[in-house]
């Protein structure tokens, strides 16, 4: 620490650099700033390249952040004038009329550099909900289609959704824990128990495989045709994302967006605002095959490890008429433990697997369920609570 203090100007600059990175969304704690100053001293090199790699080793923890880091590094350590300007900008209440940033700079960095700190926009009005919903109104509401609800009913439905939990089944892990009817003997605990008795008797302590919820990956269609449902479903997703860890949520229309971080916000309205900000293709066309391909190529290996279950929410109406969709569905099904397709169109009794997209997707899903009203979501929770086996009866019966 003493060395850090003597480093004086350097430490201060590193601190400001770290603040810039933090503002651009990188997680750089004060511990790393101290490490960074020490590392720069130890590296002791005046080369710009060594300087760069030293900082990247200490301050970076994800390859995705490198472009932001690169730009921040270039801006900060090359142009001292810009640096000064930026530092003054970062200080509270010291806004000047900043020059327009260069075009090439990424939006995130630009925001971090030039955004004026605006106070969190507080909710103008807080909606009060009727706490005592009568049983019958709740019942009616839960059977009503999202499509036909009035605004007030939607609000109520949202409230009910926020109470809903998705009890995904647990799966056995390879880790053991004490269990009276376990299949293994926990020798360590057995011995401990035995010693408590003085070593005369050896009471066996048994252990069984620990059980754990598998990770959940949700792929939600937000194209125009899904509009009435996807908004409601996002509320549901917000509830389950905050209910437990290891949930990853993607939305897709014509492109794939990972909105997990946005949904993590406890407050549902803030979370929804962040989601809306992140999504660029809301209510547009659908390219299911393309989006699934992007998921398979870029994300599947990162989020489908450890026996993940996948919930695919889509009506299966594909703009590209199912081209390449079958292959991508097959790959998706093969790389996850269990694939559930939730389709709002299934509420119509006459629904047939006529569209090319639906026909291409159907052979690969393990479970095909309706998801058009609250009741169907509750049913979904119930179905998922049962034992999961691949290609279960429901789907076969439907076919």
């Amino acid at each position, binding site marked *: 620490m003493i060395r850090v203090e003597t480093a004086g100007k350097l430490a201060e600059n590193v601190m400001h650099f770290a603040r810039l990175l933090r503002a651009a969304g990188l997680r750089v704690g004060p511990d790393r700033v101290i490490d960074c100053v020490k590392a720069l001293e130890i590296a002791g090199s005046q080369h710009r390249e060594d300087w760069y*790699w030293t900082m990247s080793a*200490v301050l970076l923890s994800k390859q995705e952040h490198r472009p932001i880091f690169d730009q921040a590094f270039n801006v900060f350590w090359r142009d001292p004038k810009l640096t000064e300007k930026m530092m003054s900008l970062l200080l509270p209440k010291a806004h000047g009329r900043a020059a327009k940033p260069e075009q090439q700079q990424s939006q995130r960095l630009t925001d971090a550099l030039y955004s004026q700190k605006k106070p969190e926009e507080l909710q103008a009005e807080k909606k009060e909900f009727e706490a005592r919903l009568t049983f019958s109104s709740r019942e009616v509401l839960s059977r009503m289609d999202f499509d036909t609800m009035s605004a007030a009913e939607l609000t109520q439905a949202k409230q009910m959704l926020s109470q809903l939990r998705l009890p995904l089944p647990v799966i056995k892990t390879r*880790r053991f824990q004490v269990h009276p009817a376990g299949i293994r003997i926990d020798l*360590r605990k057995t*011995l401990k128990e035995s010693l408590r008795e003085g070593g005369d008797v050896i009471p066996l302590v048994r252990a069984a495989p620990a059980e754990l919820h598998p990770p959940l990956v949700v792929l939600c269609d937000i194209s125009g045709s899904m509009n009435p449902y996807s908004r409601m479903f996002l509320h549901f997703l917000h509830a389950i994302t905050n209910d437990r860890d290891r949930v990853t949520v993607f939305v897709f229309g014509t492109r794939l967006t990972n909105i997990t971080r946005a949904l993590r916000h406890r407050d549902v309205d803030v979370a929804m605002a962040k989601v809306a900000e992140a999504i660029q293709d809301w209510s547009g066309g659908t390219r299911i095959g393309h989006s699934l391909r992007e998921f398979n190529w870029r994300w599947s290996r990162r989020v489908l490890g*450890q026996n993940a279950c996948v919930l695919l929410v889509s009506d299966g109406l594909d703009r590209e008429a199912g081209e390449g969709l079958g292959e991508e569905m097959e790959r998706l099904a093969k790389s996850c433990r269990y694939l559930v397709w939730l389709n709002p169109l299934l509420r119509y009794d006459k629904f047939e697997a006529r569209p090319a997209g639906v026909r291409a997707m159907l052979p690969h899903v393990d479970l095909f369920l309706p998801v058009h009203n609250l009741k169907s979501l509750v049913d979904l929770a119930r179905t998922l609570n049962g034992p999961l086996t691949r290609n279960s009866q429901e789907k076969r019966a439907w076919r």
Partner: protein
Amino acid sequence: MPQPLPKSIDQTQALLAAGEYVADRSLATSLFLALAMRRPLFLEGEAGVGKTEIAKVIADGLGRELIRLQCYEGLDIGQAAYEWNYPRQMIEIRLAEAAGEKSKERLAADIYSEKFLVKRALARALEGSGQGTAPVLLIDELDRTDEPFEAYLLEVLSDWQITIPEIGTLRAAEPPVVVITSNRTREIHDAVKRRCFYHWVDYPDARRELEILTRKAPGAAASLSREVVAFVQQLRKSDLFKLPGVAETIDWANCLVALDRVTLDPETVNNTLGVLLKYRDDLERIAGDEAARLVTEAKAAAAA
């Protein structure tokens, strides 16, 4: 013989080069810092880019013992850190009984002594045998294990100690050199990453890959090596599910040598493409015309 740690980035680079590992400046910098500041080095990257090899080369170059902990799902303390030798403990209890030992405390103290402790990778890495000889601990494919084990690692990686409830704390006199690798099949928690220096091991550029090939596949003719590298570099620009790593390049070059080829031709490439590409879709995409086109391009690039 244990060697002292390198004193500069240049020395670190020389150390890696002496172990036949062709490293770029960025890796040497991260490694030097990790060694100098006694922090774990966290290596992330696609399969087959030489992450595990780095640990082996460091252990070799520094003349230290390499302790490898291969991670898998369900890895627990008993397999990673330490375990009590239960059969021997049981016998000890019976012996004590036979000798008429009645004091529970004394019995417990006897049973839980270090001679009954079986040390696994983490405990052995912390043990060390004296100054300047701390081993190299390789925690391989950390992404394969689960979150509870990651959490357990936190104590080991930040305080260099393991707490054994029965006897106390096992503390390292000198922290081991720790290398953690991950294939990124899931994200490692920030708390672990925070304690480490991070390095993304990327695919090498053509110049470096050629250098690697010269060292690792010395049997290949210089012209063949150039063509192989040019071909693989072109291949990595294609839209593939799994890009070939350096390990695949080396395997392929050795294959071609075994087949007595001195230059690439489309037929041989088609027949041996399975060494480079491991997914059927990828093979279908490349085999045939695309392979022939890439061979022509590779030859032109190698000749230039």
